[in-house]
C-alpha cells in the first residue's frame, strides 16, 4: 500500500491507495512549517483506514509550494543572475521577457561575463575569472544568498559553469548555486529562466524537504518517500532540495491523472480549484495534453515539458473585494483558518461567500451573516464567470466537453457552466492531487548529443532507449513494467561527424518492498 500526499497552498491532502483503489482519503490545513500538516493528515488517514505504518511501502508527495511561491512572489530570495557568454547574448540580457514585478522581487542583480562555448565545445571567449571574483565581492556586498550560473552551450560543455561555481564557492562559502546544465536543455533563455527561478527557491526548498523528513520521522514511517516532478514521475528528496524548479507543474499533472482515474473520463477538461489558484487543463486519453510550446510559469518562459495548463487566481482562500465584483488574484493561502471570516479572521474570502450563500457549512456561519446578499451574488457570479472563461479559453473547439471539478476549492462552483456539456464531481475529488501522486510512476531520461559516426541511427537509438530504461530501473522502477513513452531525435546541423541530439524517456511502476 502507498500513500499519496499533496501539499497545496491551503490544504494538505492524503490518499491511501491499495493498487488503484482508494482505501481512504482526508485533508487538513497546510501549516506554515509544512511538517505539522503532513503528520496530521498521515495520522488521520492511517486511523480512518486502520492500516498500520508497517504496511506502507512508499509515500509520494506532490507539492505546489514552489510554484505558488513564484506565482505569489513570496518567500523568494534575491538572486545573482550570472551569465557567461559575452560578447554573444548581449542583445537580450537576463530576465528580458520577465514580468517587471518578479524581476524586481529577485533584485535584478544581473551580471554578464565573457565566456561560453560554441556548439562544438570551442570557447566563445575564455572565462573572465577576474570578473567572477569581482562579482563574488558584489554578492557579499549586496548580501545575496543564492546565484544562478548560465553559460552558452553548457549542455554540451559544463566546465565554465563549474569553474565559475568553484570560484564563487571559494569566495562566498555559504552561497547556494544553481547551474543551468543540471536543470535544462539547449535553448538559452528558457534554461536561464528556469535556473534563476531555481536559485530564488534555494532557501525554501531545503526547508520544505527537511520538513517532509521530520513529518515522516515523527510517525515512524521508514518507507522511502518521493516527490513528484513536472511530468508526474517521482524524484528523490535530495534531488528536490537542489532542484525545486523541477516540481513546478507536478500539481496539475497529479490532479489531472487522479481526476482521470476517479471520473472514468479520458477526454475532458479538468478544473482543479485549490486554495490559491484554479488550474485548467485538458485530458486526452487519460493524460494531460502537454504543451507543445514554451510554458509560462508566473509569467516566465521555460522549456519544461509540462501539461498545458491555464492557472487563474481563484481558490478557496482568494480575497473578495469591491462588493464581490473583484476576486483575487491574491489569496490568504494557508492562513485561511485564521484569516477567513468564518474562521474568526477579518478577510473576506471566496469560502466565506459560499458559506454566506448557504451552499456550504464551514466554520462559524454567523460570522458571515452580515454580508449583503448583493455582494454574495456578485461574488458567485464572478467566480463562475472566471472558471467558465478559463474553460472556454482552454477549449480547442466549440464542441461541448465534460468538465471534471476537483480540488478542495471545487465547492466554489455550484452551478452549471455554459462551456461544459456536463460537470462531473467525482467522489474523493478534493484529493485528486494526492491520488495522482500515489499512482505516479518512476521515470528515466536520456537527453544528449550522440555521434552517428561509424554507427547508425537505429543502433544509437536502441542504446539510448536501453539507457533510459536502465535509469528508470535504477530510480526504482520494476523492470517488467518499464515502457518507452517518448522519443525525440533532433540532428544538430553542422556538427562535425554527423551528430544527433536524442531524448528518450522511459517510465515504469515503482517497485514496492
Amino acid at each position, binding site marked *: 500500500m502507498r500513500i499519496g500526499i499533496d501539499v497545496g497552498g491551503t490544504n494538505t491532502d492524503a490518499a491511501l491507495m491499495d493498487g488503484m483503489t482508494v482505501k481512504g482519503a482526508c485533508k487538513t490545513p497546510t501549516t506554515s512549517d509544512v511538517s505539522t500538516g503532513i503528520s496530521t493528515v498521515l495520522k488521520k488517514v492511517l486511523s480512518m483506514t486502520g492500516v498500520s505504518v508497517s504496511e506502507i511501502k512508499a509515500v509520494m508527495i506532490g507539492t505546489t509550494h514552489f510554484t505558488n511561491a513564484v506565482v505569489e512572489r513570496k518567500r523568494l530570495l534575491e538572486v545573482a543572475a550570472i551569465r557567461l557568454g559575452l560578447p554573444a547574448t548581449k*542583445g537580450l540580457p537576463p530576465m528580458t521577457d520577465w514580468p517587471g514585478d518578479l524581476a524586481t522581487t529577485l533584485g535584478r542583480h544581473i551580471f554578464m561575463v565573457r565566456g561560453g562555448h560554441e556548439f562544438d565545445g570551442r570557447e566563445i571567449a575564455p572565462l573572465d575569472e577576474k570578473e567572477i571574483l569581482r562579482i563574488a565581492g558584489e554578492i557579499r556586498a549586496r548580501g545575496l544568498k543564492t546565484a544562478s550560473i548560465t553559460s552558452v552551450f553548457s549542455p554540451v560543455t559544463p566546465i565554465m559553469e563549474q569553474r565559475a561555481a568553484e570560484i564563487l564557492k571559494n569566495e562566498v562559502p555559504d552561497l547556494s548555486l544553481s547551474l543551468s546544465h543540471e536543470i535544462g536543455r539547449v535553448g538559452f533563455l528558457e534554461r536561464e529562466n528556469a535556473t534563476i527561478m531555481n536559485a530564488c527557491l534555494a532557501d525554501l526548498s531545503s526547508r520544505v524537504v527537511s520538513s517532509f523528513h521530520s513529518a515522516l520521522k515523527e510517525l515512524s514511517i521508514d518507507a522511502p518517500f518521493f516527490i513528484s516532478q513536472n511530468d508526474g514521475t517521482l524524484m528523490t528528496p535530495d534531488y528536490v532540495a537542489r532542484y525545486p524548479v523541477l516540481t513546478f507543474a507536478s500539481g496539475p499533472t497529479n490532479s489531472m491523472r487522479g481526476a482521470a482515474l476517479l471520473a472514468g473520463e479520458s477526454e475532458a477538461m479538468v478544473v482543479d480549484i485549490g486554495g490559491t489558484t484554479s488550474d485548467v487543463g485538458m485530458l486526452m486519453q487519460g493524460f494531460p495534453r502537454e504543451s507543445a510550446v514554451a510554458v509560462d510559469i508566473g509569467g516566465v518562459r521555460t522549456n519544461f515539458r509540462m501539461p498545458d495548463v491555464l492557472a487563474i487566481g481563484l481558490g478557496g482562500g482568494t480575497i473578495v473585494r469591491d462588493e464581490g465584483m473583484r476576486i483575487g488574484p491574491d489569496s490568504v493561502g494557508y492562513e485561511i483558518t485564521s484569516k477567513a471570516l468564518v474562521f474568526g479572521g477579518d478577510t473576506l474570502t471566496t469560502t466565506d461567500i459560499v458559506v454566506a450563500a448557504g451552499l456550504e457549512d464551514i466554520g462559524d456561519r454567523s460570522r458571515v451573516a452580515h454580508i449583503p446578499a448583493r455582494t454574495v451574488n456578485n461574488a458567485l457570479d464572478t467566480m463562475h464567470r472566471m472558471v467558465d472563461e478559463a474553460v*472556454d479559453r482552454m477549449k480547442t473547439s466549440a464542441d461541448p466537453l465534460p468538465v471534471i471539478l476537483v480540488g478542495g476549492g471545487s465547492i466554489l462552483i455550484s452551478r452549471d457552466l455554459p462551456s461544459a456539456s456536463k460537470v462531473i464531481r467525482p467522489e474523493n475529488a478534493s484529493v485528486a492531487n494526492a491520488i495522482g501522486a500515489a499512482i505516479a510512476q518512476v521515470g528515466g531520461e536520456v537527453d544528449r548529443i550522440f555521434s552517428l559516426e561509424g554507427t547508425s*541511427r537505429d543502433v544509437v537509438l536502441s542504446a539510448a532507449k536501453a539507457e533510459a530504461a536502465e535509469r528508470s530501473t535504477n530510480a526504482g522502477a520494476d523492470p517488467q513494467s518499464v515502457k518507452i513513452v*517518448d522519443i525525440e531525435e533532433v540532428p544538430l546541423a553542422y556538427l562535425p561527424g554527423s551528430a544527433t541530439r536524442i531524448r528518450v524517456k522511459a517510465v515504469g511502476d515503482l517497485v514496492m518492498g
Partner: protein
Amino acid sequence: MITHITLDDLDDLALGAAVLGTGGGGDPYIGKLLARNAIEQFGPVPLIQLEDLPDATKVLTCGAMGAPTILIEKIASGEELGLAFDTYEAHVGYKIEAVMPFEAGGVNSTTPVMIAAQRGLPLVDADGMGRAFPQLEMETFNVYGVPAAPVAIADEQGNCGIITTQSAAKAEWIARGITIRMGGQAYIANYGMDGETARRVSVPGTVSLAIGIGRTLREARENHQDMIKALIEFFATTHYEEARIIGSGKVTDVSRRMENGWSVGIVTIEPFGGGEPMRIRIQNENLVVEQGSDVLAIVPDLICLLDVDTSEPILTERLRYGQRVNVLAVRVPPIMRTPEALEVFGPRAFGLKHDYVGLGL
C-alpha cells in the same frame, strides 16, 4: 494597410512568419525580442510598399544564416547586422536607404525589423523567398538577375567580411563555410539593389502578409472561430490565393539524418480516417507531401503542419511521435512559379524527381 511596424505587430508577425517558415526558418521568438528591444529604443519602423519605393532608393536585404538550434542558444549581441551593414556600405561606398528581409519565413522576418529600427530606415514590404528556404541562392532576387554578391557577413564577436563571387551558389557555399567557423550562426547583408529593381524582382507584400496571417489566427482563437477556416479565407484575399488542408492525422514516425550538413527527414502521418499514410520529406523545411503514389503538395508551395488543437505551426525540430496535425498547403504567387524560378527553388533544385504542380492547378 500597415504603415508602421509597432510593438503591437510583433507577436502577429512572429506567428505569421512561423507559418511562412513551412516548418523551418527557426523560431521567431528570439528575433521578436531583439526587434522589440530595438523598437522600444528607436521607435516604430515605417513599412514601405514596393510601388511607393522611389526608383533610386538604395535597398539592402538581410537576415541570419545558420542552425536554428544555435540561434536559440548562442543569443545575438544585437550588433551583428549593424556591423554587416557598416561593412557593406564601406565596400560599396554609399549609404543604404531601405532594408528588406531576404526571407519572410521564420526568424528572418524579425531580424530586418531590428536593423531598420536601429538605423532609422524604412522596411520594404517584400522579400525574396515568399516563405523560408534553406539557401542564399534560393531568392527571386537571384532568379530575376540581381547578383548575390557582395555579401557582408558578421558575427557577435566583431568578426566580419565581404564575399565577392560571380554566382549566387558560390556566395552561399562560401558564406555557409564562414558561418560554421563563426560558430554555426552568422548575420548577412547582401542583394543590394535600387528601388526600381526591387519592384521587379521581389515577392510583394510578404511582411504585411506575415502580420496578417498571425492576426487572423490570433483573432480567430480569441473569438473561438475555426482558425483553419479563417486562415484559408485570409489567404484567398492575398496573392497566394489558394490554401487548403490536404490531410489530418497523427505523427507515427519521425526519421532524420544529416546529408552534407542538412537535416533531412521523413515524417509519417497516419490519417485519422484511416487510409494510406502520408509521408512528408523535410530538408529544414517541409518539401513534399506524398500519399501512396500521389503528390499532394510540393515545393515551392507552402507545406505547414499545424497542431490540430491549437493551430500553432510546428517547427520540424519540434516534430515528434504522437502529435496530431493538420497539413496545410498554400500555393505561392505567380512570381515564384515561373520556369526560371522553379529552376532555382522548384522540386529539382532539392533533388526531388517530381515536377511542380501548383496546388489547385
